[in-house]
């Protein structure tokens, strides 16, 4: 995976102790989420207690990086500096728990081939920053998956 960001300008997240593992997981090619160790509930975005059992025994765990396309929009409007237009904004759900969603970009996909429900795989876009590097989780069609 190239270490050069394919998109020169992105607004990056403000890193905190709660979100650092998520935004830097790509360094190890891992998509990671907080998970309740008592009831196995995935938790996203990060919060101090489990939303199911209200327990505080939470830990960050990697997931497979496989996901399903929930919905998308092909964006044509130059809101801000960013990916080359038009680009695809998508909402995906991870295969481990469909209630855990990410807003992201769909990449490496012909726009005519986009189908809601298609199988996706994470890839990371690395951005160096003096406040801490960030790896944005983007999604591409999963190779070999039945479409």
């Amino acid at each position, binding site marked *: 995976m190239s270490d050069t960001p394919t998109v020169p300008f992105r607004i*990056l997240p*403000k890193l905190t102790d709660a979100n650092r593992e998520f935004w830097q997981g790509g360094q190890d090619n891992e998509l990671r989420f907080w998970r309740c160790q008592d009831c196995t509930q995935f938790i*996203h975005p990060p919060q101090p207690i489990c939303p199911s059992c209200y327990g505080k025994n939470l830990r960050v765990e990697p997931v497979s990086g496989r996901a399903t396309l*929930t919905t998308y*929009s092909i964006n*044509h*409007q130059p809101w801000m500096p960013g990916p080359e237009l038009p680009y695809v904004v998508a909402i995906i759900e991870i295969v481990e728990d469909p209630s855990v*969603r990410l807003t992201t970009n769909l990449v490496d996909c012909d726009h005519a081939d986009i189908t*809601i429900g298609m199988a996706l795989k994470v890839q990371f876009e690395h951005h160096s920053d003096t406040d801490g590097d*960030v790896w944005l989780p983007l999604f591409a069609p999963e190779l070999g998956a039945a479409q």
Partner: protein
Amino acid sequence: MTETLDANSIIERRACVTGVGQSDIGRRLGIDPLELTLDACIAAIEHAGLTPADIDGVATYPGPMAVPAGFSGAGAYDVIDAMRLSVGWYGGGLETSGQLGSVINACLAVASGLANHVLCFRSVWEGTAQGSKGRSAVMPGSGGSGSFKASGFTEWTLPFSAPSAAVWIAMFAQRHFHLYGTTREQMGWIAINARRNAALNPKAIYTDPMTMDDYLGARMIATPFGLFDCDAPCDGATAVIISRVDRAKDLRNTPLRIEAVGSALRGRPSWDQFDDLSTMATRDAGAQLWTRTDLKPSDVQMLQAYDGFTFLTMSWLEAMGFCKVGESGPFVEGGERIARDGVLPLNTHGGQLSAGRLHGYGFLHEAAIQMWGEGGARQIPNNVEVGAVAAGGGNTCGCLLLVKE
């Protein structure tokens, strides 16, 4: 979730609309937004036949906000101070059931006796704030500086170059298209209907006729939304007086009683984590409203429903039961049902799509104008005794049912 309420516990019925007012409205007026706000407030008080001394409550949405520029023209304190009001109750804020959440709060305040007459207002100056650069001028980090960092909800959208509600709501629409076969041509009727009504509204922003070809040919913003699926930022303020029914008997206008409100939120308060991405909290507010009245959707003679984006109006049509879930496309297709002389006249002032993004309050203003027969050239031919108003989208949604008695 569904429980039977006795009529006495539905206290919004003790509240009514007694007056409405509006400032000048334009794309870029360059007028002090507090001045616009006060123009609307004073107009509404006069329209109700009240004096400022009668006003003992103030409600607004979203309260003072510096960012994004133009989103809020004044807060409750600004108006209380500028008019030297003395209030028994007041409130303003963003975390409520859409823009009309502030009106619902006012209904509860008068019903409980904390106030007799609440001045509710919403003012915007997004046209002037955005200038010639349009919405991109007010996007976070739009200066292109690498030092700005996203946090809060924007942490999960801005890094993916998805800064606008246009993109987030486009994804809801796309999901609806996928599940129900909804089309751009169907959605276009919301925009065309708004434009043909705007032609009869002297305060509307866009009045040139719009054809389906115009709609489909406009440049894409974020699929399935083109330019004419998005509302028109403007400058302007709207004010509404909410009074307790026992204080409204001898005022200038026939009171428009609040029959029921909907304020519910039953999914996660998030644009992307909400449980069903083909609907929104419209679903929850709309369902709740019908648990608080014996009236039915078929009793409603007019709907004024939020159209910050065309799809939001379609979502409200389904959420409030004017058609089945998934059938808003066929319902609006052809534009006959929703025309001024149709079974359910819709957004008779031109909505935010053509009359300007007055952000929620414009719909309540128009509902009252129509029910009082003050619509002029755009007046609905039939006398409207039951009207519905809905505003908001995503996780911030509220609706009202009005009855003229």
